[in-house]
């Protein structure tokens, strides 16, 4: 396979080349190193968002019974209004604020004279109108600069209204991407919410699903599967999650982690404080789902549970096998590129493999080295000015609540059998010759498509249209193009159908990428296959 990485980099100036070459890796079968979580290059179209987007948009936004107020001028709140397709259903007698957008709509005078008073009154109004149990305040760029103390306002609001109020200093410029916002949100949830409830799970096997944002209903599908197996879901961070359920998260027996990037802080902090172990799971893909379910069962170690899980797997498989096979016939041998935030690019490779497809390009917007290379690199990650500014909580063991499910000896045994308290990263699951790009930009996306010519490219709205203009099918991995769920057994079929439909639609027989141009008979509509 020709080396495509160098073709990609050659167009850059010397300075830019120096920066970007560390972020672009062509795998060669050995353990690879990549630069990640460093500042984006100004002037290139990075796909990255900001700290506020990570805190409000990703982590706390989906909490349905929380009134999340954006403190700042109007834009940021508007742009983060319903743009992640998290689904949430209303609990009996409870409220669902996920379709609302609250902003303090700061004006010039508020920037000059400070916005604390306005924020305080905005909370008063929100409480009077909506009676939320919990209010969260997310700060945008100007807040830290003008010196508004959102934490102090939150404390005063708690006293005044007798509700929970949490301030997040997630100003857009903090850190280098959304990732900083995840960390700040994780800290706030850990400090203020987790451990404040006392509703113990009813079932002896209970889990929290961490890093599942219920895009397209993925969380619901996972919950359905787990319930079928006899495992209780105490809380979900945070898709279809709620303040109420997060309060009781410390009473679950095990944490299962979907999106490692956005939530690993909480997994680790809960482990330190309450002794709860975590395992990295992946419900995207049939084989991945089976592996995840088996590992959960193995962790609990109950023979009846193990048996039940096998029954469920067999039954669910029997329901999808035929359709998966027919989809595989259409998709086998196709190649894919996938760029997503910080975990999906790894998850979806498993599902694409189930469908007989190969992932040849993968990249992340805001992942850290551990997401690419595995958690064992964490001690070796260099701290820089940007990540030093993000607070690391000091966690102390909660002597009253701390408990271990397994003895240290048993843990040693289990560690060899399941992915316990660790994560191996994405690159190990990829093949030699594949290209991995960190903090990919618009230019590189275009060049990669021209150079690697994948059949389908999974990314987001910002590059979707240029990919399609290049004649390549695009599906949005952030919003699922309103489809889903893609998780679990049923989700695999839905995803497969979506991909097959996209690749085989007649439309793409007429809109062709340039390299498919010459031998085609223009204008002929064929029945199914896209490229003769």
């Amino acid at each position, binding site marked *: 396979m020709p080396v495509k990485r160098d073709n990609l980099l050659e*167009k850059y100036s010397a300075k830019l080349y120096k920066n970007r070459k560390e972020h672009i890796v062509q795998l060669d079968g050995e353990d690879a190193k990549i630069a990640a979580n460093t500042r984006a290059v100004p*002037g*290139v*179209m990075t796909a990255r968002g900001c700290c506020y987007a990570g805190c409000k948009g990703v982590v706390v936004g989906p909490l349905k019974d929380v009134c999340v107020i954006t403190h700042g001028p109007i834009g940021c709140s*508007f742009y983060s209004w319903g743009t992640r397709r998290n689904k949430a259903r209303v609990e009996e007698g409870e409220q669902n604020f996920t379709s609302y957008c609250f902003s303090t709509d700061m004006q010039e005078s508020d920037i000059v004279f400070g916005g604390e008073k306005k924020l305080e*009154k905005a909370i008063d109004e929100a409480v009077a109108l909506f009676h939320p149990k919990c209010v969260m305040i997310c700060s945008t760029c100007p807040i830290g600069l003008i010196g508004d103390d959102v934490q102090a306002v939150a404390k005063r609001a708690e006293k005044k209204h007798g509700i929970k109020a949490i301030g997040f200093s997630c100003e857009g*410029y903090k850190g280098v991407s959304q990732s900083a916002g995840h960390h700040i949100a994780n800290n706030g949830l850990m400090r203020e919410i987790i451990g404040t409830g006392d509703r113990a799970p009813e079932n002896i096997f209970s889990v929290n699903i961490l890093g599942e944002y219920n895009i397209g209903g993925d969380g619901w599908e996972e919950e359905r599967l787990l319930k079928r197996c006899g495992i209780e879901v105490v809380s979900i961070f945070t898709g279809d999650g709620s303040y109420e359920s997060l309060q009781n998260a410390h009473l679950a027996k095990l944490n299962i982690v979907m999106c490692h990037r956005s939530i690993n802080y909480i997994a680790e902090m809960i482990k330190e404080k309450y002794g709860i172990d975590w395992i990295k799971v992946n419900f995207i893909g049939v084989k991945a789902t089976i592996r995840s379910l088996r590992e959960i069962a193995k962790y609990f170690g109950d023979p009846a549970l193990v048996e039940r899980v096998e029954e469920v797997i067999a039954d669910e498989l029997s329901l999808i096998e035929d359709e998966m096979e027919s989809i595989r016939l259409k998709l086998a041998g196709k190649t894919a590129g996938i760029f997503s935030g910080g975990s999906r690019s790894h998850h979806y490779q498993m599902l694409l493999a189930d469908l007989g497809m190969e992932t040849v390009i993968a990249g992340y917007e805001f992942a850290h080295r551990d997401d690419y290379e595995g958690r064992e690199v964490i001690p070796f990650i260099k701290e820089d000015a940007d990540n030093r500014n993000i607070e690391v909580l000091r966690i102390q063991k909660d002597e009253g609540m701390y408990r271990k499910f397994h003895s240290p000896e048993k843990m040693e045994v289990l560690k060899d059998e399941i992915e316990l308290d660790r994560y191996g990263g994405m690159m190990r699951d990829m093949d030699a010759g594949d290209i991995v790009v960190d903090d990919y930009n618009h230019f590189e996306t275009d060049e990669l498509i021209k150079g690697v010519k994948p059949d389908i490219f999974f990314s987001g709205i910002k590059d979707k249209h240029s990919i399609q203009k290049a004649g390549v099918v695009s599906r949005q991995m952030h919003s699922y193009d309103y489809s889903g769920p893609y998780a679990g057994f049923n989700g695999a079929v839905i995803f497969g159908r979506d991909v097959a439909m996209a690749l085989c639609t007649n439309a793409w027989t007429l809109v062709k990428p340039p390299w498919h141009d010459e031998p085609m008979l223009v204008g002929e509509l064929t029945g199914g296959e896209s490229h003769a």
Partner: protein
Amino acid sequence: MSNLVNINVNPCKMCMPMGAAMAIAGFKGAMSILHGSQGCATYIRRHMATHFNEPIDIASSALSEEGAVFGGEKNLQKGLDNLIKMYHPQVIGVCSTCLAETIGEDLKAMIKRFHEKNPGSGASIIDVSSPGYGGTQNEGFFRALRAIVEQTVSGAPHKAREGGLINIVAPMISPADTRWLKSFLNEAGVRSILIPDISDNLDGVAQKRYERLKSGGTPLSDVMRMKSAEITLEFSEFISEKDSPGAFLRDAFGVPLLRLPLPTGLRGMDRFIDILCAYGGKISAEHAKERGRYLDAMADSHKANAKARAAVFGDPDFVKGIVSLCCENGAVPVLAATGSACAGFKRALGGEIEKCAQNAFAEGFEIADDCDFSTIEHFCGKLGANIMIGSSDGRRAAGRLGIDLIRRGFPIHDHVGGQRTRTLGFDGSLGMLDEISNSMLSRTEENFRRVIYNEHFKPLKEISKKERLESHPCFSGCASQNARIHLPVAPKCNIQCGYCKRSFDCPNESRPGAASKVLSPNEALERYKRFKKNCKNLTVAGIAGPGDALANFDDTRETIRLIKGCDPQVMLCLSTNGLMLPIYAAELIKLGVGHMTVTVNTVDPSVGAKIISYADFLGRRFTGEAAAGLLIANQLSGIKMASEMGAVIKVNCVALKGINDGCIEEVSKKASELGAYMVNIMPHIPIKGSQLECLEKMSVGELEALRTTCEPFARQMRHCRQCSADAAGTLDMDFFSASEERSAHQEFDTENTKRFAVASKSGIIVDQHFGHAEEFLIFDSDGASSRFVERRKISRYCGGAECDEEGKWAKILKALSDCDGVLAVRIGHAPEEKLRASGIVPIRACERIEGAVAAAAGSLREAESASAL
């Protein structure tokens, strides 16, 4: 409801950099870079890409914490350098953001230094000051246009104008509308320079090779020529001078500026065409035909359009264009709303909408700037909007309201084709009009048979006793959301009770001391219809005086017939002293009266003689125990007859301390035995001038003890509100209180009105202490008559229970800022001073609101004219 003061719930606006980036996209070879954190660019790219279905490249200087603290020049220089190396743009718009403006970045100086360091960059770099807190996308859009013109056009004013050259400045219109505008100008033979031209750049074609730098847009060389044009036409009447490119060209180069509405609808187009013709344009025969087609369609669909009650929202100029199109077609824009703070908005739209609303019998309309979607949704519900026109953010409200949303403007995120929506030109207007008409026709098609059938032909449904109990607020209790209306058609009474004074309503049934205006049966029907329209949960119509319903039986019967004829499903209810009940019971049942309230104060004639002084029965006056005996006998037999015939009976009993309190238990037993459903033991409220004026009032505890004693014999009512004879609404909320409605249709001198805030609990008389009022009723009066305007809650203006005294005052004054006076039963000294200091006259009053307000207005005007002399 006005906008909340501090929280924006579901915003109807975006920020300045968004608008700036969109405007810059309309220039040839142009790209923008936002100086701030990278999230701004990412969010804006995402929103524009979803709307236009196009790749959107907006760069960012990607400031991090270091940049925020020490300044971001290094990042911006690097960003410009990279942008130029990778994309080779000819024009770069550098737009500031909240972050850059808050830390005070000097864009001009930075750009100057960039040019010094990179002399051969080949790019014109424009700086745009667009802080997110400085305005909405609309202001950002124009500010970017102005910046481009200001920083491109230079040199001395041209002496000779380029003959026939017209500058056109467009607000945010779609690429498709831009294409139309260009081709229209072209076909009219007008030479023009259009800024911005997003027709190709934001609506590209599928290409063999995708070009990163878009080839469309207005070239800067054209922008340079704008100074020599004969005139600038700016399709915005609202943007401020300082953000107007046309104003710059006028002030700096003497190019005349004409601001005009968007060419939407007949009048917008005619105006545009007139101007083009004045500058040498010619309208082709084909375009003349298009005008004819539009006129033809106006006539074809006017009946459907007249049913439309549209809520239009978006940028001010867009809203004005659509409002104009709606109005000329008789579709009433009951709500015109914009998220921008726009001073001239109300004034510019009011006259036209008012006229249209009157012609189409629409009851009301609202024009609101600085408006969020929670407010828009509220008004849509209140004003009965049946269609929304605007961006896709209206979809949530439209979904909840069950009405159509015609997607126009920006952003459209849930449909494809945002870049192809049309509102300009005859054809664009016509497409839009068809959508409005068709939405109305679909509604009619779905509903009209059912509506007409239900209104005129549906057979009466037997209403079971259970249903009757559940849907009558007096029987189903406090929690009831069912509303009732009392129709005051019965002024006369046939007995004289000791606690009653004839000049007021009957205290058996009504709030003591209040007097209702008596209505004729036809007036009662009109009031019923008006109320029914506004109150979907109206289930009961009742006649409760002001005298005795059965002492005025002809009017009572006529009223019942009229109401029943207009609304066969309504439940009818009536209250009486029972003297005539045996005579009319059968007829009442036949008329459909299902609920009756009979006031029985005693079943012992010797006690009764102490309560009533006489009874007039069939032309004879009985007095003393004979009167009491007759009344009791008729009450008891009447209750038995009516309840046997299926009516639900409530027995009212006025507890008179020392007179009948000993025999109320007996009343309860008897009532229950005869089939009454419940007994309502009411407190006696002493009325000045009545015979029992001095009787001590029974305490709440005593009353409760009485009810408990009687509980074993009969169901007790504990939620009685002692409503007035003209009450309307639910028990807890006389929301459409009759006083509001009474004054709604009076002749009114709108020129010389005074506005008053009234402290009133009842909504009928001024009966509250200023300091106790949680809300004020706002009335306007010209001195002769008065008109209810709205209710204002102080809590809306005051930030909660612990709001400090000073803060609360500020809020009260804010709430009352447009009032000339305040009416209350009493006002403390300090507040009185404060009100006076703010130019609000405090007035003590205790009579009916309308009268008090009119009198106050009269005296204020007198005082004014006296001081003027």
